[in-house]
């Protein structure tokens, strides 16, 4: 097994799927000769040609709408939006249209589109290059939402997304692209959509997270173990929608304490739903109030380092919340 970065895993997943199935193609801003703003499609136009690697005008509504229309003819488009912050013009086609295609035709039509969206902060991206957008799509029936944390998960889940017959929002945390490296098998593999993974087993506290934050949670769990305070179980959701309620509840019932960590704004975030789930279905097992370490309710993280640091959850903030829970 070779050690790869997240961006390499993403690139490999797409390249292999395009080699495997001629219906798969990529489209978006700068995906051609530029190879994508993060180089996710580097080398693609040379290998697959401009017919399957389409540089589009700077117009997100049509990127999503055209991808959707192509999917109606049996294609499996992978539209890319350069930054999550630029996604909003495409939202009508994504939430209004794609998410309702199957339901609104009573199953006669479907929309196998995987929209790839680099998201998230901690990279000095300011208000318009840092945003977390997952809650909007998490709320939308008809969509699947994936937010991997590791190269292995990114590749296996992106392949599954491309082969899925539904519209999938595939969220790639920008900070993980080159920061996070890990083993990736050479052979073809897929991972099931809708399955969380216990990234670190523990008996005392459950922490549920996804994306970049999983790595901070793992660091915090090691800190608490080293301090002898608690053994923390880290659940990586991997897929946000459909939510793997079984794995979350199983862990909470085992530990009796739950902390949810995400970078997205706290109000109405994924954590709100997981807290409601635990309160509803694991109430009798809880030994402490459910905790959340999340982005505050400000419009994304500001540009200044001080303000960005103040916004971002990090290992120390998570560790402190875990100590508080352990002491409860």
């Amino acid at each position: 097994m070779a050690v790869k970065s997240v961006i390499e895993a993403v690139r490999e997943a797409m390249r292999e799927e395009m080699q495997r199935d001629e219906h798969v193609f990529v489209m978006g801003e700068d995906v051609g000769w530029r190879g994508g703003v993060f180089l996710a499609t580097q080398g693609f136009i040379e290998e697959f040609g401009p017919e399957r690697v389409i540089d589009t005008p700077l117009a997100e509504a049509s990127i999503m709408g055209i991808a959707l229309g192509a999917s109606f003819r049996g294609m499996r488009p992978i539209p890319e939006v350069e930054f999550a912050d630029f996604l909003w013009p495409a939202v009508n086609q994504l939430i209004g249209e794609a998410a309702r295609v199957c339901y609104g035709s009573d199953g006669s039509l479907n929309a196998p589109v995987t929209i790839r969206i680099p998201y998230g902060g901690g990279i000095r991206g300011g208000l318009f290059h840092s945003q977390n957008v997952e809650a909007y799509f998490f709320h939308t029936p008809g969509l699947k939402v994936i937010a991997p944390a590791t190269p292995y998960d990114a590749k296996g889940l992106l392949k599954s997304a491309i082969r899925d017959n539904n519209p999938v929002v595939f969220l790639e945390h920008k900070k993980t692209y080159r920061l996070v490296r890990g083993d990736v098998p050479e052979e073809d593999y897929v991972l099931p959509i809708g399955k969380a993974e216990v990234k670190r087993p523990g008996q005392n506290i459950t922490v549920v997270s996804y994306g970049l934050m999983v790595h901070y949670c793992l660091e915090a769990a090691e800190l608490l173990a080293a301090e002898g305070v608690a053994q923390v179980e880290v659940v990586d959701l991997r897929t946000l929608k459909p939510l793997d309620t079984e794995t979350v509840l199983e862990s909470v019932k085992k530990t009796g304490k739950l902390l949810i960590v995400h970078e997205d704004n706290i109000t109405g975030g994924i954590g709100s739903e997981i807290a409601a789930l635990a309160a509803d279905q694991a109430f009798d097992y809880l030994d402490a109030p459910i905790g959340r370490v999340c982005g505050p309710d400000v419009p994304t993280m500001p540009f200044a380092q001080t303000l960005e640091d103040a916004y971002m959850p990090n290992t120390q903030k998570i560790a402190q919340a875990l100590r508080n829970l352990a002491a409860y």
Partner: protein
Amino acid sequence: MTQLTNQTDGHADGIAADISRQLPQGITPEDLVDFYRRMVTIRTIDERIWMMNRQGKVPIAASGQGHEAAQLGSLLAAEKDGNCFFFPYYRDLSLKMGAGLTPTQVMLSFMGKEGDPYSNARQFPLQGADLEHNVIQTSNVVAAQLTQAVGYALACKMLGDDKVIFVYFGDGASSQGETHEAMNFAGVHKLPVVFVCENNAYAISVPQRMQMAIGDVANRAEGYGFPGLIVDGLDLLASYEACREAINHARREGPVMLEMKLERLMPHTTDDDDSRYRPKEEIDAVREKDPVAAFSSFMLEQGYLTEEQQEEIRAQARRAVNEATDAADAALPPDASDLHKNVYAP
């Protein structure tokens, strides 16, 4: 394609029905009778739907009265071609029914009953997909269908299928950003798309002069690098001829826009009251431009149908619509347990 220059007639003014002409290339008298029959049946069911709304049995309907000739003219051209696909919008009853739905299927859809061929009564009438007849209309968000149609055309091109894609929209939708994005992309990639703007001069209550600073939507096509033509959308044969040429052009060279000048004879929907924003004289004048009446006169004057034959066709349409109304009225709505079905595809 010939005659690709833009004209700037005023809206539907100066368009007189030219009834003493040769039949266009490829059209037989049998085609005319066939399409007359479809047109009469569609008008009959359109009027019935409105009536059923007033009886409380059809929750909502957007009448297509005034748009029949444009839609059926395009359908006739597409049928003659044999390899077209349609992305209509909510006022396209004539296209959707003309493409092959039975009166009963249409009434089931309007009454929200099990067996609605488009969405099984999940959506407003005749929205969803009727793949059997090559029609997709995913929603009634105006202009959403344009980028989708362009994507469908892109896919056809990638797969080596020489289909021509018709996408229909109103003058109202022409203001949407997605209309611009769709036409721009189609122009860049020279995709085989016929953009049909059914310009009835009103976006619900907002007249064209408040929607745009120009007289003809077709003029915009030049900005996307393809031709835009003005068509008398109240004349079935004029619409047919324009669409036939447009299909040839689309397949050979790329997109075309056809601005079908026509009239909305009824309020926007059954929930609308057009007397609040249209002067009575205007509404009365518009009714004089009824394309169904014009086609009836044409068929009579050219000797394709006698008055008796026309009356027989109308009577057959009434019987068919009566039977469809009774059947749909007696049909059941979907079971409540259907609520959770097909949120996701397998």
